[in-house]
């Protein structure tokens, strides 16, 4: 069997924030690079995280360096990634059960790191966020924000592509070859077609997050990374418009982050030996709820949509564990291990992904003798949609405010607008809402489905938010498959199979939180799919 051959300067392994950030950085420096990712965009931790664009307040006492990096990167990201960041600001709230003596060192740490703080009266804070506990003793405002990790990765990829970077999704690295102590090539397999490819290159960046130990092992090397699982709960509505942290040394379940229409509470921290250990347990969920309740007394009454988990790529030299492990990042030039041109970058946070990329790219550039400087902090990743432009297209969409959609689709905006106009030119109802809970129209789905990197309904979901709202796919899954079939929008697999796979994936996140209204929702879903449509396991088995 012939093996496809690709040549480039640098191969980046891992399509998370770090890897794609690296690809963008290299591309902006004019260095030819190809990124390989075993799954879709942000398949790993970068879409399974909390979504807090740290102000650094969290690390103000324990880790001044991290805190400083956070506030600097936070400021940069608001500028270059406006579409991915919601500038919500954050509160740090001291409750009666917290140590009041923590406040002084915390304020001092913030000041040292350059994080602006402002104390609000509890009354004012509760006027702004009425759901916060009336027991609160002190409240401080910090520049925390929210970041959509998936979108951040996507927009980085769009920017990288514009500058010549290539992204190969669903390509898994299976081997790394070296010759005379130099990197020679990377073997990958296309997991959709099972074709094998070899990428010849001068350098490799291992940005495989929690998997970077496995990647290093393919080159016969060792890096001290340990996956650490964190679980999160997604609530159906935005009961806080600000990030809300407990003002105490960081621990489980003490941060609430609003995200578009939802709120996320997290997280836990449990050492695990599998980077893909993404199954939250019911015990974790109950514990998170119990811990979160003092901050939001009505917490147990809010509807839970689902739960999910991701693994942190913790840097653990000498076996440090959990919250005691450093949150700093590490760049390894494996030349010291005898392999030239092989670099590993991991640890850190999503907030600092750009800085991590800059650091590793500096090392790669100097290895390749390229002197162009890093410019990633100056250039916005995607162009901002002009308000007039959106206004002119308003009639082609069922919902008037197009800003959410425009932020989501980034570079694809023109394509979506054109499709919408085409659809509505023949019939005013030509571009209906397919997903009502997250307000996704047919044109958006159509545009994303046509992207060569979209293979499944889940790929479309991640880019549009289809199926991520209140009904968790109960209505939109059927509508989407139906509309796509009707309008000849290509789906790579059998529509019924696709439908089942999609629902099955949604159900996975519901399972650990299946009570209350969400349990009713699932009964409805079951009634529709298993009852009315008879879409059962026996008829359409899904391999997971």
């Amino acid at each position, binding site marked *: 069997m012939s093996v496809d051959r690709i040549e480039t300067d640098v191969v980046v392994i891992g399509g998370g924030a770090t890897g794609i950030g690296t690809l963008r950085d290299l591309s902006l420096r004019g260095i030819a690079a190809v990124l390989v990712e075993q799954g879709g965009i942000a398949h790993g931790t970068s879409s399974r995280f909390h979504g807090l664009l740290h102000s650094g307040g969290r690390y103000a006492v324990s880790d001044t360096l991290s805190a400083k990096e956070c506030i600097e990167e936070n400021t940069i990201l608001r500028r270059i990634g406006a579409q991915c960041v919601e500038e919500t600001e954050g509160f740090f709230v001291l409750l009666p059960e917290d140590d009041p003596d923590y406040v002084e060192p915390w304020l001092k740490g913030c000041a040292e790191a350059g994080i602006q703080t402002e104390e609000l009266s509890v009354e004012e804070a509760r006027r702004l966020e009425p759901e916060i506990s009336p027991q609160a003793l002190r409240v401080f405002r910090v520049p925390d924000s929210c970041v959509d990790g998936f979108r951040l990765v996507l927009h980085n990829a769009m920017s990288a592509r514009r500058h010549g970077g290539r992204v190969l999704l669903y390509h898994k690295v299976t081997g790394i070859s070296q010759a005379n102590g130099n990197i020679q090539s990377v073997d990958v397999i296309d997991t959709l077609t099972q074709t094998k490819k070899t990428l010849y290159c001068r350098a490799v960046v291992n940005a495989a997050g929690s998997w970077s130990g496995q990647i290093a092992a393919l080159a016969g090397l060792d890096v001290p990374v340990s996956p650490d699982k964190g679980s999160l709960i997604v609530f*159906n*509505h*935005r009961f806080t*418009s600000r990030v809300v942290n407990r003002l105490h040394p960081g621990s489980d379940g003490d941060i609430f982050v*609003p995200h*578009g*229409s*939802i709120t996320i509470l997290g997280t836990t921290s449990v050492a695990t030996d599998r980077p893909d250990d993404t199954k939250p347990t019911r015990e974790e969920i109950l514990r998170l709820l119990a811990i979160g309740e003092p901050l939001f007394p009505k917490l147990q009454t*809010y*509807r839970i949509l689902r739960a999910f988990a991701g693994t942190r790529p913790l840097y653990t030299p000498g076996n440090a564990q959990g919250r005691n492990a450093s949150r700093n990042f590490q760049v390894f030039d494996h030349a010291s291990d005898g392999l030239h041109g092989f670099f590993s970058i991991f640890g850190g946070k999503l907030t600092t992904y750009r800085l991590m990329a800059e650091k590793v790219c500096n090392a790669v550039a100097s290895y390749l003798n390229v002197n162009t400087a890093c410019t990633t902090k100056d250039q916005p990743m995607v162009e901002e949609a002009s308000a007039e432009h959106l206004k002119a297209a308003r009639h082609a969409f*069922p*919902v*008037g*405010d197009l*800003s*959410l959609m425009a932020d989501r689709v980034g570079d694809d905006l023109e394509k979506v607008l054109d499709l919408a106009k085409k659809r509505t030119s023949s019939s*005013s*109802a030509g571009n209906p*809402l397919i997903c*009502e*809970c997250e*307000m996704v129209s047919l044109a958006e789905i159509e545009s994303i489905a046509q992207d060569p990197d979209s293979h499944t309904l889940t790929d479309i979901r991640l880019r549009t938010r289809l199926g991520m*709202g*209140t*009904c968790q796919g*109960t*209505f939109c899954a059927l509508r989407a498959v139906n509309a796509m079939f009707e309008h000849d929008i290509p789906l790579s697999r059998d529509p019924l199979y696709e439908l089942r796979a999609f629902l099955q994936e949604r159900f996975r996140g519901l399972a650990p939180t299946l009570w209350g*209204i969400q349990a*009713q*929702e699932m009964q*409805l879903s079951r009634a529709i799919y298993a009852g009315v449509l008879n879409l059962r396991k026996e008829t359409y088995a899904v391999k997971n």
Partner: protein
Amino acid sequence: MSIHLDPDKCLACTTCVVHCPVAEATPAFLGPRMIGPAFERFRLLGIVEDDSLKYCANCKNCEIACPQNVPVATINMLARMAQCQEIPPSFRDWIVAHGEVLARGLKYFPAWLKNMGTHLSLMRTLLDWIGIHKDCPMPNFAKTAFRDHLPRLSQKGFAKSVAFFPGCYINYYDPGTGFDLVWLLNQAGYRVFVPKDFVCCGIPLISGGFEKDARDNTRTNLRVLAELNAQKIPVISACPSCRLMLTREIGEFFPELMPKEKISIDDAQSFLLKCIATGELDIKTAHNSSVNISAIYHAPCHLRAQGAGLPALELLSYFPDIAICEANAGCCGISGSYGFKKEKYAIAQSVGARLFQRITTSGRPLVASECGTCRLQIAQATKKPATHPLTLVRAALQGRPLTLG
């Protein structure tokens, strides 16, 4: 103001969408679930209000249908009030929402002069120009308002009394129904009075987005109601919309104004049924009359929204002289002043079409319904006279033939 109702209870089941008459009539309306609980999640995010919100008629059929008790229409009205703080409503919307203020202002003009607006085609063209459709039905001002005339009635020798909340429709356009009620209550041994401070219940203000005015009215009405309730004087209403507003909606819109004690207002028909049950109202004489009324009954949406049955239908069925059947064909489309508005007129007509058809083919010469604007809409569309059920009850009990038109 930003009250947000928790959207969590909604299952997205779309039952409300199937039952929303406006969503059925026009694709321009995103529908109750989308503009209500689903959009509320985005209102919390601060997204620009959707234009389609203006199509909600506040008819409440969504809430009647919802298996999860989601206050869909209330969510919509709260959103409209919030929207109106940003974009002030039009002159036309002010006019149709402030019927009471307008009527008070025009108090000293004779009715014939005021009614020119509803008859002269020139005036209708003018109204059309400000946004009131030239073909929509419009009520006529009565010569004397109910509340002005009531004190002139002699009601002596009654040991018990009831307070009547007449609402704007009976007061300004349809005092006759008010007098029928007074007559019936007198028969049951009650003196009827209207506390002088009662003002418009506020439902038209809510539908128009006039939050502050609705709040002011609510505050005033609550004060009067609290006094009456404390004195154990029963309060009754003969208008389903007023009663819906005063017994339920104000608590949703203005929770901060609500007293601890439950405010109670009886439906006039329910109150009469109770009087019959206790023997206070003797209806035996009705069995000897021969008035022979044949009518079809339309249950107003705001009555069904109260979830308290159809007391008028029950009351009417006590009288052998009244042959009554229920239309059971949904909304008439008018929804207060919704169907007056130029851009909604066609929707309102299309919403009511099924009901009009049912009434026309029923063969019944007469229509009964508690709601004033429903009657206007139905009478215009079906060319059949429409009357309040209390008028029929009085006719049957008094043995007095109906004079209609």
